């Protein structure tokens, strides 16, 4: 079962290289997305046994993220079906091989993310995270523009270098366990945690935090993120922001679990809280006065990653809040990036100043864009309201008054910054040159609508199977409800 899950997406990616007809490639992506979703659902229901010396297993935390990744990929593949319509790609300068390569990289990317959530061995986890970088870098360059090439290079180099540090951190962890005869799987490390050597462990934590933090987009290691997320094709941005960042978050959460088990939890927590708040500050500064709406969404991702790090750093109930927030944020941000693709397609610009009257011109996407902003900003009744509130509650319960007040301050600044841009984009009359609203295509509006319905559902009613999965994951990662 685990093997089927681990090998499905890479196999589908390899087969995609053999397809030549564009329509087949588009159908293939949707079919593979559906297959992965069904496989993931079956694996989550069946609770399969670990394989390969226990290096690959589906634990509680993995289940939550596997569900998010598979769902997002399926929805993004629906959107991609419309996105890759020949008439929409007519002016793109593609070589004949570009489309199969794009589909193949997309599926390898999905496969790499699946390996990240399944990996229990830290070296394997590292290899999988690096594979996500390598398979997603070509996706960013899909449009063959100068700007996307620059973004690709930055992404490739900064993330590879950052992740190389995480490998050094993993080896430090091995040194910390040296002599105790334990392997490098999370369970073995956590079980023998008491005998881990503190100095090596601290060094390992710093290196792992910087390494996977780079990939997660925590400031000040975030320099690649706004570029990559704004220049990538919109469905890819949705996957990078919604699925990939959460994968990196899982790497940090697993490392923290080992630290906490070894009695170094306090050290790990301070660093996480500091990085989380700093990320929120940086995001707030750059969202205020942002001129590009996809970059605005990218900085919003940095902000939400800061919230995740903060929740994880507070620990206890904060870990549950963090996981719930990760799920909520994935859905909301993916929805917003898909909608940003619709806005970009209609207006032909990413400049906030040039987009007016989106609520009129795009009768479905416009209102959804507004609703998605409200969700991201943490307004009820959307799911993010609850998870952000739970983070706040956890912070106050732990007496972290300073962190809680800074958290609220930065959230407020982000809301103000985003509101001024989003509201201006949505309001206003039909832009000049348009007589009547656009007739939007089903492929462009159904995927974000599905995601929006998901966030709304998580806000008004948390299904019990989701709640139980999140609670189990929180307990596994060293927290409590």
């Amino acid at each position, binding site marked *: 079962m685990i093997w089927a899950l681990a090998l499905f997406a890479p196999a589908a990616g390899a087969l995609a290289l053999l397809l030549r007809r564009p329509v087949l490639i588009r159908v293939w992506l949707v079919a593979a997305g559906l297959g992965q979703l069904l496989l993931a659902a079956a694996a989550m229901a069946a609770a399969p046994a670990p394989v390969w010396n226990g290096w690959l297993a589906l634990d509680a935390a993995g289940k939550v993220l596997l569900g998010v990744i598979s769902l997002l990929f399926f929805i993004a593949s629906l959107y991609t079906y419309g996105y890759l319509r020949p008439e929409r790609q007519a002016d793109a300068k593609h070589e004949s091989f570009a489309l199969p390569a794009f589909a193949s990289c997309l599926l390898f990317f999905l496969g790499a993310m699946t390996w990240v959530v399944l990996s229990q061995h830290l070296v394997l986890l590292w290899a999988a995270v690096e594979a996500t970088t390598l398979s997603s870098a070509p996706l960013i360059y899909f449009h063959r523009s100068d700007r996307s090439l620059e*973004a690709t*290079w930055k992404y490739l180099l900064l993330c590879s270098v950052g992740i190389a540090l995480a490998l050094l951190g993993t080896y430090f962890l091995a*040194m910390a366990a040296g002599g105790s005869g*334990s392997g490098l799987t999370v369970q073995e490390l956590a079980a023998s945690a008491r005998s881990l050597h503190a100095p090596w462990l601290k060094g390992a934590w710093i290196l792992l935090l910087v390494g996977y933090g780079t990939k997660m987009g925590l400031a000040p290691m975030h320099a690649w993120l706004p570029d990559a997320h704004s220049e990538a094709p919109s469905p890819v941005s949705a996957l990078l922001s919604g699925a990939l960042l959460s994968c990196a978050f899982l790497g940090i959460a697993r490392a923290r679990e080992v630290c906490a088990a070894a009695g170094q939890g306090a050290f790990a927590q301070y660093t996480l809280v500091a990085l989380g708040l700093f990320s929120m500050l940086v995001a707030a500064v750059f969202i205020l006065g942002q001129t590009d709406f996809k970059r605005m969404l990218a900085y919003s991702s940095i902000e939400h990653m800061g919230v995740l790090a903060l929740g994880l750093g507070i620990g206890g109930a904060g870990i549950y809040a963090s996981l719930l927030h990760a799920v909520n944020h994935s859905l909301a941000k993916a929805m917003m990036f898909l909608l940003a693709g619709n806005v970009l397609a209609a207006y032909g610009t990413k400049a906030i100043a*040039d987009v007016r009257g989106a609520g009129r011109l795009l009768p479905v996407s416009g209102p959804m864009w507004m609703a998605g902003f409200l969700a991201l900003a943490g307004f009820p009744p959307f799911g993010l309201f609850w998870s952000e509130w739970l983070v706040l509650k956890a912070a106050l319960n732990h007496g972290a008054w300073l962190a809680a007040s800074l958290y609220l301050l930065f959230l407020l600044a982000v809301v103000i910054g985003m509101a001024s841009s989003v509201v201006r984009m949505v309001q206003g009359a039909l832009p000049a040159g348009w007589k009547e609203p656009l007739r939007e295509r089903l492929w462009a509006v159904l995927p974000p609508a599905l995601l929006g319905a998901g966030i709304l559902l998580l806000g008004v009613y948390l299904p019990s199977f989701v709640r139980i999965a999140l609670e189990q994951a929180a307990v596994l990662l060293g927290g409590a409800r």
Partner: protein
Amino acid sequence: MSWQPEVANLLSVLLILSGLALFGASRLAFGIRVVAVQGLGLGLLPVFAGAAGAHPSAWIMSGAAILLKAVVFPWLLLRAMRQAEVRHEVEPFVGFGLSIWIGIVLLAACVFASRSMAAWPGAPAGLPLPASFFLVLTGFFLITTRLKALTQTIGYLVLENGVFAFGTLLVPEAPRLLELAVLLDVLAAVFIMGIAIFHIHRKFDHIDTNRMNFLRDWRREENRPGARIAPEARP
């Protein structure tokens, strides 16, 4: 096997010297050859000086590492160099003379740091520890102060070599199969970076990363009202 620490120290000296050579290397072809020699030294580590001893798996690891680090990576880099039609690193942010001095200071810092880590349980004596740290810092230095995308790739490779040296010399328990997965990742990384360099050269006619600066926040030309960009635009 009492000769093992000696061999480890000897190879560490080779690694340190190759790192120092890179601080002053202005010719890209020379830098790539240095990295090849470094890769050869690293490839010998698992068999002759590895923490796990000369198991059969260590031979496989050595073979794979030599093949990739001493042959395939340099070949990929040389190919990228020819495609991009560059020979020299010109006017880096930090001059070559100063770079060498910085290299010596960094080396001293690594030795000092390793000595202060000697009290850490399991910390090895001798040169392997400072050598691996020095390679990591060398890689960082090259990535941050050199302009050419190709030199930055070399820097990434040297950084990765440092991590590899740390892993093979000090960590006996990492399963070799997973080490191979790591090597495969690095291979893919160098390969994709090579392709990216080719595209950068074709598009911009240079591979100077400091001149790639379209993407920044605030005051961006194309975000002025009225300026339109087309990549994702509909027909």
